[in-house]
Structure formats: structure tokens, C-alpha cells
């Protein structure tokens, strides 16, 4: 099985290549099918890996040595351990479903070739990122998904707002990417090796617990993760990223790419163990982001921006779990979140598309007539997001994180619990506003089959995935943490009595949130606005803050530099040079006596003028003719020599 590992990122990459190179000769409908087949290829290979026992036996394949510099040889090598197996299953599974969904969703788009090229390329990049066995290859995948995200957010690039959203996403994530790159350089300068397994053993051998270097490295890696996963303070790009097509939002900005940061920290968690302060920081960022995202989502009026802030908030839960050392639980929530958030985005996409590209939730409610299936699937997704007790997958993953957070610190738990309350509030506020508005309830519009199928599968997954890991102390399977224990360890859990108390509170919070939503919606319909609505809607004013604090000064600096450098150094320098030459020429003229030479020069000029009259026939100004004369000269010389 190991020798087929390359096929997982290879199939989408091949698809992207075929679409890019031969896409001009393929009909538009076939492009979509081709891209879906490439995604299916990746998914089937993952399935084969499962069947061949990859769950217990890590697979490893080294394709070739990428670069050989001295004794450092980073390879194109893939490792499929349990952590990677979870990720590739989620990525290729959701990726396949989103590809299928796109077939009909993007059917009327004229530039499908670009769309499917980047979608396939994204899938390949994400799978490379996940499977990479060294940090260089991981960084390649990291940048590849960033590029595809930029290209797909700005897919409708003729609209300047959307194009600007793409640029913003790229620029903001670049801050994190640079931090990650510096972190990788730092690791390399330490250990002269970037292969993950070697790195971890070397770090264990050389680093001391809590040393400055370990802290700095972990901090830089965290910077990369924060940028990619849209956590505070680099979260500003994600709400704007909703300018892209809905399937893209579902795949890249909900299910997979934004969770790359979570994966990165989980993957490098042996390094984080050496830096307890940074781990604490991860948890703090997570806790703050939960409340930030949830409160901002509560005041949004754009359908997709609600979901974007919700994604920020949910990834906050994952960061919280990572910070508490509950890596397996972070991964669990990542998985369930990928399913229910993709489901929410795809349902929202179907609704928005059926209503003629209307994004405002209040107006959507007035329009009504949304596809019935989309309504039900959205309800399932919303229930799972709100963590409705017992029946939804979101409950099991979020409840486990809440419990782990209590063990790490009750303050963290309080933040997470408050977030859970708000989550139920904002998502059901959105549901009620959109689907229970004043418009007609029933709909004549039916969804195309290729959109129905992914919605149904994701809806089922959003309900049942949770059952593989029941809460602490419940009878039933605890497959997930037992399976990942060897690789990711177990999180500390509070005593049993506390756990039960927390579970009861955790079950009541979503219900309270839903009640809050009912109250909110009723008052909102009556024209009441939440306090601080503008503040919350603008995402706590981060955009304005960054514009004043960072963007403006930078622009001023750039403009100033341009003026100063260009005016002073280049123009000034050249002018000085010219002045110097001019002074030299003046001096020469003054010192050389012209009178003696004058007569001779006049004679010479007369002679030259005569010659010029004769020769100027050849000077017709044609460059080719001159070149011809030069080459004739060389020809004659060569001929003479030969002869």
C-alpha cells in the first residue's frame, strides 16, 4: 500500500495539470466531471489505505530527494500516520463532495477551467501539507493552499471588492506564513534537519523545558497557525473571504484550509510541549477567539459572514483544545466541524443561489421560497453547530473540549461556555430570520441532483460522527481518543463528579442559546437592535483599527520612501555626476589653447567633410545594412585565413 501513497495528492495534482494544459480542448461539462474524478481518485486511495490497515500501521513513502545541499537532503516524502489519516479522510471526503456540488452550482459559470484548476490544485496542496513528512514539503503545501485560496476568493475578479478581498486574505495570511517560515529557519539552524520525526527526537534530546529558544520557535509556528486559521489577531481576512463562490467557502474557508493551523500545531505538538507559556497562549487565543467570533456573528446581516465568524469561533474551540493538551479532541472537533460547517455553507449556497444572489438574511426572510431540502439540511447543520445535546455530532466534540478546558482552568471553560451559549443564539437567529421570515414557506425550486447528494451525505455525517466518541463516563464506545492515544496522548480530565456537572451545564447552554435566538428574533423584527450592533457587525472594529494603525502608516512610509529615495539618491546622484562632467569639460576647454590647434582642425574638418560626401552614400541609417557590412567583413577575414 505504501507505494500508492503518492496517489493521494497526485490524483488532484494530475487533474489540475490536465485541466490547465489540455482544458482548452475539453468541453465545459466534462471539465467538472474530470475534476470530480481526480478528487474521487484521492478519496478512493484514502479508502484503500483504511482497508489496508493504515489505521494501525503508519505508511511511509519517499518519492525522491528534492534538493541535496551538502548533507542536508529534504525529500518529497509522505507519511500517513493516524493524525494524517484523519486529515486526509476529511480533506479528500469533503473535497470530493464539494467537487460534486460544484458540478451544478457552477454550471453556468463561463470560466470553469480556472475554477476547477484551482479547486484541484487546492486539494493537492492541502493533501501535500497533511502528508508531508518534513517541514519544507509541509511549507510547500501551506503556500500552495494560500495561493489557491487567494485565487478562488477573487474568482470573480472583475468585481473590485472581491478582488480586494482576495488580496486582503493573501496579505494577512502572509504575516503568519512569514512567521512560520522564520520558525522553520530557526529549527533548521538548530538541528540542521527538518524531517519531522528526526526533529522531534533531536528536540527531545537537546531542548530544555521552557527554554527561550523553544518558546520562540513555538511562538513563530503559532504565528503561522494563527494566520492560516484566522484566529485573533489575524482573523480579519476570513469574513471578507466570503466573496468567493459558496463551494469554495465550504471547502477552503470552513472545512479544510483554515483548519491547517490546528493540524500544524497538532503535528508539531512535541515542540509545543517544551514551551508551556506558548501552550497557555494557544489556549488563551482560542478562548478569546471563541467569544469574539460568536459575538460578532450575532450581529451580522450577511448570510455567509455569519458562517465566517462562526468558523472563526469554532476554530477557537480547536485552539482551546490544543492549548489544553487535548490534541485528539481538537482533531475530533475539526472533523465534526468540517462536516457540519461544510453542510451549512453548501445549504446557504443553495439558498443564496435560488434567491438570485441575495446575501442579506433579513431580505432572504422576506423573499422566502427557499428549497425545502436546503432548509432541512441547514437546520441539521445549525443543530450540530449549536451542539444540540445527544443527537448531533457537534455536541460530542464540543462537550469534550469544554470538559478538557475545565481541567486546564475554569476561566477558559467560562469563555468556552459563554461562546457555546452565543453559538446557539447566532445560528438559530440566522435560521429563524432566513427560513421563518415573512415570505412563503414552500418552494417550487428543486435542487439539481449533484447538489442534493453531497448535502444528504454531509447531513448524515453531521449527525452520526459523534457517536464514535461518547462523553467521559458514558457507556458506549470511546474509539477516537483510544485510537489516537499513542500519537497524541490523552488530555487531563477533571474528576467524575465535576464532569457530570459540566455535562449537564454543557447540554443546557445550547438550549438556552436557542431560547435567546427566539427572543432576539422577535425583538429584531420589532425594530430593536442589539447594543453595540455596529461594533459587533464590523468584527469589533478590527478592520478600522488595522487600517489606521498599520495600512495607513505603511502607505505613507512607502510613498515617502519613494519620494525621498528617488529624488535624493537617484536623481540627485545623477545630477551630481552630470555636474562633475560638465566642470571637467569646462576645465579642459580653458586649459587647452585653442588658437594653435584651430588651423589644423579646420583643415581636418574640410578633409573629413569631403570623405563624408563620398561615404555617406553607404549611411542609409538602416541597422540591418550596417550589421550586414560588419558580417561581410568577418566573412572576408575568415575566408582569407582559410585560403
Amino acid at each position, binding site marked *: 500500500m505504501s507505494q500508492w501513497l503518492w496517489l493521494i495528492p497526485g490524483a488532484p495534482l494530475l487533474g489540475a495539470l490536465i485541466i490547465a494544459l489540455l482544458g482548452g480542448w475539453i468541453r465545459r461539462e466534462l471539465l467538472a466531471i474530470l475534476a470530480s474524478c481526480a478528487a474521487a481518485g484521492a478519496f478512493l486511495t484514502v479508502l484503500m489505505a483504511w482497508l489496508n490497515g493504515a489505521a494501525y500501521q503508519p505508511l511511509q513513502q519517499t518519492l525522491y530527494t528534492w534538493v541535496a545541499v551538502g548533507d542536508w537532503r529534504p525529500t518529497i516524502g509522505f507519511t500517513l500516520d493516524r493524525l494524517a489519516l484523519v486529515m486526509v479522510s476529511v480533506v479528500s471526503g469533503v473535497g470530493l463532495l464539494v467537487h460534486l456540488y460544484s458540478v451544478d452550482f457552477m454550471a453556468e459559470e463561463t470560466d470553469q477551467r480556472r475554477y476547477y484548476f484551482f479547486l484541484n490544485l487546492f486539494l493537492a496542496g492541502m493533501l501535500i501539507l497533511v502528508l508531508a513528512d518534513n517541514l519544507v514539503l509541509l511549507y510547500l503545501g501551506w503556500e500552495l493552499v494560500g495561493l489557491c485560496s487567494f485565487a478562488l476568493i477573487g474568482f470573480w475578479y472583475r468585481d473590485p471588492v472581491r478582488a480586494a478581498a482576495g488580496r486582503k486574505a493573501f496579505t494577512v495570511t502572509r504575516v503568519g506564513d512569514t512567521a512560520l517560515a522564520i520558525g522553520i529557519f530557526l529549527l533548521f539552524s538548530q538541528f540542521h534537519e527538518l524531517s519531522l520525526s528526526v526533529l522531534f527526537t533531536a528536540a527531545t534530546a537537546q531542548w530544555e523545558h521552557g527554554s527561550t529558544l523553544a518558546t520562540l520557535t513555538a511562538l513563530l509556528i503559532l504565528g503561522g497557525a494563527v494566520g492560516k486559521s484566522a484566529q485573533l489577531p489575524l482573523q480579519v481576512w476570513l469574513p471578507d473571504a466570503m466573496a468567493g463562490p459558496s463551494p469554495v467557502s465550504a471547502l477552503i474557508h470552513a472545512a479544510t484550509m483554515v483548519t491547517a493551523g490546528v493540524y500544524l500545531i497538532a503535528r508539531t505538538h512535541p515542540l509545543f510541549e517544551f514551551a508551556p507559556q506558548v501552550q497557555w497562549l494557544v489556549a488563551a487565543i482560542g478562548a478569546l477567539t471563541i467569544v469574539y467570533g460568536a459575538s460578532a456573528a450575532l450581529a451580522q446581516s450577511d448570510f455567509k459572514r455569519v458562517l465566517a465568524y462562526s468558523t472563526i469561533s469554532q476554530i477557537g474551540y480547536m485552539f482551546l483544545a490544543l492549548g489544553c493538551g487535548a490534541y485528539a479532541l481538537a482533531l475530533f472537533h475539526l472533523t465534526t466541524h468540517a462536516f457540519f460547517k461544510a453542510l451549512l455553507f453548501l445549504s446557504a449556497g443553495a439558498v443564496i443561489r435560488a434567491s438570485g444572489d441575495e446575501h442579506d438574511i433579513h431580505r432572504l426572510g422576506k423573499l422566502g421560497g427557499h428549497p425545502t431540502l436546503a432548509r432541512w439540511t441547514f437546520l441539521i447543520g445549525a443543530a450540530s453547530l449549536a451542539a444540540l445535546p445527544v443527537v448531533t455530532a457537534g455536541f460530542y466534540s464540543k462537550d469534550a473540549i469544554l470538559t478538557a478546558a475545565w481541567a486546564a482552568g475554569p476561566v477558559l471553560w467560562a469563555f468556552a461556555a459563554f461562546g457555546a451559549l452565543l453559538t446557539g443564539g447566532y445560528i438559530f437567529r440566522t435560521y429563524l430570520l432566513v427560513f421563518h421570515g415573512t415570505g412563503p414557506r414552500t418552494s417550487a425550486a428543486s435542487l439539481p441532483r449533484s447538489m442534493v447528494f453531497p448535502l444528504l451525505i454531509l447531513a448524515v455525517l453531521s449527525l452520526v460522527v459523534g457517536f464514535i466518541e461518547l462523553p467521559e463516563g458514558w457507556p458506549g464506545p470511546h474509539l477516537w481518543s483510544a485510537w489516537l492515544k499513542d500519537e497524541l496522548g490523552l488530555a487531563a480530565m477533571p474528576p467524575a463528579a465535576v464532569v457530570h456537572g459540566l455535562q449537564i451545564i454543557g447540554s443546557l447552554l445550547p438550549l438556552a442559546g436557542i431560547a435567546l435566538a427566539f427572543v432576539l428574533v422577535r425583538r429584531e423584527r420589532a425594530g430593536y437592535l442589539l447594543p453595540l450592533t455596529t461594533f459587533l457587525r464590523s468584527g469589533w472594529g478590527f478592520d478600522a483599527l488595522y487600517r489606521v494603525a498599520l495600512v495607513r502608516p505603511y502607505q505613507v512610509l512607502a510613498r515617502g520612501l519613494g519620494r525621498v529615495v528617488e529624488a535624493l539618491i537617484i536623481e540627485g546622484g545623477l545630477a551630481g555626476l552630470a555636474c562633475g562632467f560638465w566642470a571637467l569639460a569646462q576645465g579642459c576647454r580653458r586649459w587647452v589653447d585653442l588658437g594653435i590647434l584651430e588651423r589644423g582642425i579646420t583643415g581636418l574638418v574640410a578633409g573629413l567633410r569631403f570623405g563624408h560626401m563620398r561615404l*555617406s*552614400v553607404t*549611411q*542609409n*541609417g*538602416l*541597422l*540591418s545594412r550596417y*550589421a550586414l557590412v560588419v558580417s561581410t567583413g568577418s566573412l572576408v577575414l575568415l575566408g582569407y585565413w582559410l585560403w
Partner: protein
Amino acid sequence: MIPLTHSLVIAALLFTLGLAVVLLRRELLFVLMGLEVMFNGVALTAVAAGQHWGNADGQVLTILLMAVTAAELVVALILVWLAFQHFRAVRVEDLARLRDAQFRDDVGGGAS
């Protein structure tokens, strides 16, 4: 193993083709491309000879040649751009201002 002669014949062929482009084509950009091909013929000669004698001098020469080409090309491309900007000239005939005023009607340049 390739005999040195063969490499040199190929280099000569490239050089000659480049020269032909310079002489025959009248578009400025094509003339520059022809120059590039000529430079490359020379570079192939240097590398082939260096490998034949088994020392690095040929490659050193080629690297220096590349530096010179880069310098040449940057200035030449800017001049082409300036010619286009000021005289709308894309062909060699458009830039015949050096010819003697007497013979201005001699060649049918594109500019006139």
C-alpha cells in the same frame, strides 16, 4: 561521447541562425532575440571547449557572458521601449535618423 567538433558545428549553426535573424528580420524585438541566439552559440562553444580541455574556464567565460548579456539586454530593451514611446517605432527602418539628410528618400522607411 560527443566529439568536440559536433558541439562546435551546432554552436556555429546557432550563431549563424542568430545572425540571419539579425540581418533578415526588421522588428526590433526580433533583432534582439537574434542577438540572444548568437550569444548562446558562443556560450555553447565556450562550454564545449571547456569540457574538452577539462577545466572550468569555459564555464567561467559563459557565466561572464551571461552577465554581459543581461546588462546589454536590459539597456537594449529600455531603448526599444523608449523608441516605441517616442517614435512609435517597432521596426528597424523607423529608427533611421542617423542616415544622411541627402539620402532621406533613398530607403522607404516605415516612419516616412
